[in-house]
């Protein structure tokens, strides 16, 4: 090869490589978001996941599945502090039916874990559906992972179930949140991380966006059946809760959270971790780049 050709080729490569990377980053198609309403959580999920190609589009026989609901608080289901147990049970049941080798469910809880697992009704629902509750209150269950792309949280201890799983289904509940303003799909990632105090100390909104870089969910199912409008994330009483009977399903975590702000009637810019996540390339926070499918269950 002549020196000129070599330089030419080099120059071409230098231009092409970032362009290719950019092209890969920018979603070729619009992000599909399914919004289902007016049904029980189980029915909403059945309708919604069918619109995304059915559970078999996500779970193949023999795969290890992890379902990550929000089980953060020692509260009964009607207080809407934790994901609806019926929804978690239905997802586990469908995964098992699709031939999953193992379905694990866990959360790094805020209140005492055994009480959260039990009183949320989720442990019973998961066991009945053929899944397994994994413990997450012990540091030994977490593995150190590095993520250079993250802005503030470049290493973190992440729960082993997430790292071992072939399929990760993110099943948060939508709530108002004292610290992060809103909790939904992105904020749910704090339950995968061991050291939450690190996140609180190093700019919480950025760390929430960073946490979502550690493992892309294969499917996000946002439970907005009962929605805690005030005093979140725990709620003080039933007066904080409104029954909206909605559910949002998407593979795009940022798009799901962007639309969720409308259910709480929060302007998007008041929930800064959503835009920070979009800047990290985790999804789109522009409605123009979403394909929204609205369904009645």
């Amino acid at each position, binding site marked *: 090869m002549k020196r000129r050709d070599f330089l030419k080729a080099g120059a071409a490569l230098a231009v092409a490589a970032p362009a290719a990377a950019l092209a890969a980053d920018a979603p070729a198609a619009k992000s599909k978001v399914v919004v289902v*309403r007016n049904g029980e959580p189980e029915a909403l999920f059945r309708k919604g996941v069918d619109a995304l190609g059915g559970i078999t589009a996500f779970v193949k026989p023999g795969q290890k599945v992890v379902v990550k609901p929000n089980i953060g608080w*020692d509260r009964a289901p009607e207080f809407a502090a934790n994901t609806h147990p019926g929804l978690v049970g239905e997802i586990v049941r469908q995964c098992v039916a699709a031939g999953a080798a193992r379905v694990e469910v866990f959360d790094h809880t805020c209140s005492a874990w055994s*009480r959260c697992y039990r009183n949320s009704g989720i442990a019973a629902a998961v066991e009945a559906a053929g899944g397994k509750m994994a413990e997450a209150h012990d540091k030994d269950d977490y593995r150190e992972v590095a993520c250079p792309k993250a802005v503030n949280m470049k290493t973190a201890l992440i729960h082993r179930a997430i790292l071992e799983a072939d399929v990760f289904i993110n099943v948060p509940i939508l709530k108002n949140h*004292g*610290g992060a303003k809103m909790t939904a799909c992105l904020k749910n990632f704090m339950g995968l991380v061991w050291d939450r105090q690190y996140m609180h100390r190093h700019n919480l909104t950025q760390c929430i966006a960073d946490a979502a870089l550690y493992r892309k969910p294969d499917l996000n199912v946002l439970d907005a059946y009962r929605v805690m*409008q005030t005093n979140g*994330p725990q709620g*003080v*009483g039933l007066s904080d809760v409104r029954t909206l009977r909605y559910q949002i399903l998407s593979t795009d975590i940022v798009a799901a959270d962007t639309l969720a702000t409308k259910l709480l009637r929060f302007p998007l810019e008041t929930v800064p971790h959503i835009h920070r996540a979009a800047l990290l390339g985790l999804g789109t926070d522009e409605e123009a780049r979403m394909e929204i499918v609205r369904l009645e269950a």
Partner: protein
Amino acid sequence: MARSRLWRTLRVVRLLLAALALAATTLAFGYAADLVALLAHWWEGAPLPEETEGLVVVAQANLGPALMAVAARLSLFGLGAAAAILAATAFLGRAYCSIVCPLGIVQDVLGMLCFWRGNRPQPRLFLLRKGLGVAVWAAALVGGWTIGLRFLDPFTVFGSIAAGAWLPLLLIALLTLWRRRFFCNSLCPVGALLACGSAMAPLGLRLTDKCVKCGKCVRVCPAGCIDPKTATLDNGRCVRCLNCAAVCPVGAIAYGRNPGFRVPGRREALRAGALVAGGAALGLAARAVKPLYPAYGPRTRTAKEGIYPPGAGSRQRFLTKCTDCRLCVTHCIGHVIRPAGTFGAVHLAFDEGMCEFYCNRCAEVCPTGALLPLDLKTKQRTRLGRAEIDLAICVAGTEGFECGACAEHCPTGALRMKEDAEGIRVPTLNHDLCIGCGSCEYPCPTRPIKAVRVWPVDVQTLAADPAEVFKAVEPEPAASDEWLI
């Protein structure tokens, strides 16, 4: 008659019952749930640790705590348990000490360590035994000075061992190696009480004239209550281990009329009355000695103590009722209840957890009545302390980041994030709602000092009802077909 088969069988039954009781009492210190969880782990797919909470009754039925509970809160359960145990003394003697009392059984187990040598007769130490016993009881129950029981009540000493303290175990082991059940017969206030009943009970054990003075029974008697020279058995000290009857080669140990049976005379009654009065005075005097209970000002948490579990009532009350048996410590689901220091009381610390809002386990398990049983609703409003925020070190104040860890954990809505003049959301506190549960202090990320801390209160009062403060913010909107998204 040769060795008695009946006595040997009864002794084996005693051993089995004792083993069962020791296991149950140990498990009652919260280990039952751990055991169930472990078993569930082995048999994959078994459900979460189920309720093992009823087992705590075994602990509450101990004579020491039962009497305390009667005095502290007129516990009917305690009354029943104490009455049953004392009534049984009339015909079973101190069988309680061998079959129920966990520390007594621990001493029997430790006694096996010196299998190579036999036991020796022990001095009667009549005045020490009964005097100390009565004085300690009077000081604790009348004088309200529970420190005496803290170091001498066998259930409390066992509790500290069960909760992982090694010093009491070492001391008991040394005493046991020296003179077997010396503790039971000379120091234990419960033993002293039962000894009075057993010594004067209508029925008891005695050596018959079949005795050939071979001394075999003396060597196996842990209580040292058989005098080989006079061939007599002291029913007051006998713990009914039945070792002697099982080993006697001629069947000279007989159960029947107690030679010591008599109605106490006036002299004895007066002496007992004097001891009770003296003990009560001692208790009252001890409470007046300030250094034993240093005052913690509301803002000077110099000592680690000062915040007490829900149901303690007030600092003053709690310090005169709690014996530091640590049943609540091992049951605390938030791991916030810490054992007492030498002269302090069981207290709360929020470095590893928070007082869980939906848990009132400590007040349920407390066997001595130091914690009054609270229904969950009342417990959720009982103010254990007062939180205070130091914005000078708060993340929101120093870094300008929104953190909110305290606000998200606050279960009553007392602590909320509100925008300050610069538009940064900082924690603000509604003191009326604060119950001092530590839900804010525990997750606060600032180090080395937390920006939100809970300070002691002298009396536990009722905080405002969140349900009254937070009325429905907005009415449920009328059903509309319009899409929100």
